[in-house]
């Protein structure tokens, strides 16, 4: 195993779970999220030496790959979204897999109530470890907008957790 192979695996181990969760916010299925993560990560690794901020570019590449797939499959996505609104999703979001206590279960359920744009920021900020500047680079948004949306997301989570747990489920 050479140095380059070790390097990309380190990046993958560090950001893989967050990237998959990040891509999952933009796609309609886990399989498409995995495809987008693959495409974005390979593109990032080829271009990593030419960019100023590799971490921001990594999320940006995965985001673009996920959006491309979402656009190319928009008709099917609309149909799946309609079905998802009519009945609860059969596949739970990744953060619901293992709740260690009731408070964590509440937090995981509260994440479902966030707007997709807010959830995207939370994933990059909390699990990706990106700064607001890096998130702004990855999402093509002003840094002030990113900071405001993140604060709004935390506020929404705070209010959702304050509700009785049965109202979130």
């Amino acid at each position: 195993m050479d140095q380059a192979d070790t390097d990309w695996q380190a990046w993958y181990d560090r950001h893989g779970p967050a990237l998959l969760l990040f891509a999952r916010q933009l796609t309609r299925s886990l399989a498409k999220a995995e495809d987008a993560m693959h495409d974005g990560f390979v593109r990032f690794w080829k271009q990593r030496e030419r960019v100023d901020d590799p971490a921001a570019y990594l999320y940006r590449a995965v985001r673009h790959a996920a959006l491309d797939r979402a656009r190319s499959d928009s008709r099917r996505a609309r149909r799946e979204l309609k079905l998802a609104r009519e009945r609860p999703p059969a596949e739970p979001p990744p953060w619901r897999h293992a709740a260690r206590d009731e408070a964590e279960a509440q937090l995981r359920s509260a994440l479902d109530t966030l707007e997709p744009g807010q959830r995207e920021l939370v994933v990059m900020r909390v699990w990706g470890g990106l700064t607001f500047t890096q998130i702004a680079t990855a999402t093509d948004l002003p840094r002030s907008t990113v900071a405001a949306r993140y604060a709004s997301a935390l506020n929404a989570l705070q209010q959702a957790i304050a509700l009785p747990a049965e109202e979130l489920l």
Partner: protein
Amino acid sequence: MTGFDSDEIEQRLHAMRPAEPDPAVRRRVRESLARSTEDASQPSTYRLVRRSLALAAVLAVAGLAALLIQRSHKAPVAEGPPDQPVVEHQVPASDPNEHADPLFVERPDPPPSAPPTLLALDRAWRDSPQAFNDLLDRASGLNRPSQPTEPDPILTVADARRWIQNEELP
């Protein structure tokens, strides 16, 4: 009912590690990176030769296409057969009765009456002026009036006396 402030929410979110991607995704990434690394590790001379060959192939195809186009434009003048007289397509004469209506038989018009020749007129003039005039009348389609008859004799008083005396009428 549970309440958290923002910092506590962030801490709990940090503690919630998302699910690991499927190992198949890691394998796909490894294979894709290996392919891209293999392509990038090709020696520069190899890439140069490959590009040169590709360029030569493109130029050869373009030259061949240009040559074919040039030959196709010159072919009728330089290497083509001598000019041939233009032969119009002959349409075979159709049988006039081919599509004739069996209930309708077209009959030819009768030939017009032939005018008398100068020789016949000359002969008629020499033979008889009356025959000459009749011949002209037939040729022109006119019916010349017949020869005028002698006018009725006018009875005079002397004729009446003679008729009474001799009981002769003129």
